[in-house]
């Protein structure tokens, strides 16, 4: 059977950015129109249309999300997210076993596994706590908070920079995975009745 759904990355962007109250309507509208275009002009054209809609909707959807909750709730959620996600980069930087990394790949692999698991957990918990606020803002904040930790690590002795590049990539991906899981788990928009 032909897949009649838009590309997954774009769908996730919409899911992440759209405010909870409007999410089902927005996703439903985009899907309905995507399928109409796919039937009439093919999936490629429909995919281009969908991508263009998503790109042009990023700013309005972020503004819409921000206006959906009170400023106090938005800030408290953001603050909680910052606090939680600050802890992980701090630990990541302070607990790095530089000497062990230089000795061989086994400890490096273990460190990587633990770091990735912790990153996914941090993303999940941070977003779950701040779910009513602005999950998209949390994602951006997490990315910004990792930057200083990774930059600091680049100057570390006797550790190849490729290690840090892999670590940053894995940790970033794991955090995003955790964030998206939390959004999906805690914001089942399709089942959320409007009031």
């Amino acid at each position: 059977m032909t897949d009649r759904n838009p590309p997954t990355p774009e769908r996730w962007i919409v899911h992440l950015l759209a405010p909870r109250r409007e999410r089902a309507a927005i996703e439903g509208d985009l899907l309905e129109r995507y399928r109409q275009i796919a039937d009439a002009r093919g999936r490629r054209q429909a995919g281009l249309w969908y991508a263009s809609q998503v790109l042009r909707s990023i700013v309005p959807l972020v503004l819409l999300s921000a206006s959906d909750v009170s400023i106090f709730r938005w800030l408290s959620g953001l603050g909680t997210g910052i606090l939680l996600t600050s802890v992980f980069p701090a630990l990541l930087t302070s607990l790095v076993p530089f000497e062990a990394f230089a000795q061989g790949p086994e400890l490096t692999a273990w460190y990587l596994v633990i770091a990735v698991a912790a990153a996914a957990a941090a993303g999940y918990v941070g977003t779950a706590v701040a779910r009513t606020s602005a999950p998209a803002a949390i994602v951006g904040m997490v990315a910004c908070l990792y930057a200083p930790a990774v930059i600091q690590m680049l100057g570390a002795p006797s550790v190849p920079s490729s290690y840090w590049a892999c670590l940053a990539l894995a940790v970033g991906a794991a955090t995003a995975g955790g964030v998206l899981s939390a959004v999906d788990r805690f914001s089942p928009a399709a089942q959320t009745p409007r009031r």
Partner: protein
Amino acid sequence: MSRDRLTRLELIVLAAVLRTSGEAYGVRIAEEIGQRTGRDISVGSLYRTLKRLEQKGYVSSEEGEPTPERGGRAKTFYSVESQGLAALRESVLEMRSLFAGLNLEGHSI
């Protein structure tokens, strides 16, 4: 009575909601705007504008039934409230007054 001035986009969306009365949900409203004005409005801009209009009390919304072609998601139908109608009328009267007797043929716009 003085009320919030409608922005150009608000005016367009409000008129489109009125024109598609009874079936005014996102896709239909965007189609109407596209057909009438040639604008390809993004879904984000549309819903942000609808939200502003709703907050001003110019439109109200109601959730429909979930449908399979929308992946089981419900449509949100919008309708124009009396305040919205009054605001729309006020804007149209302003425009008419502004352009009354003006010959645009000789002017480059």
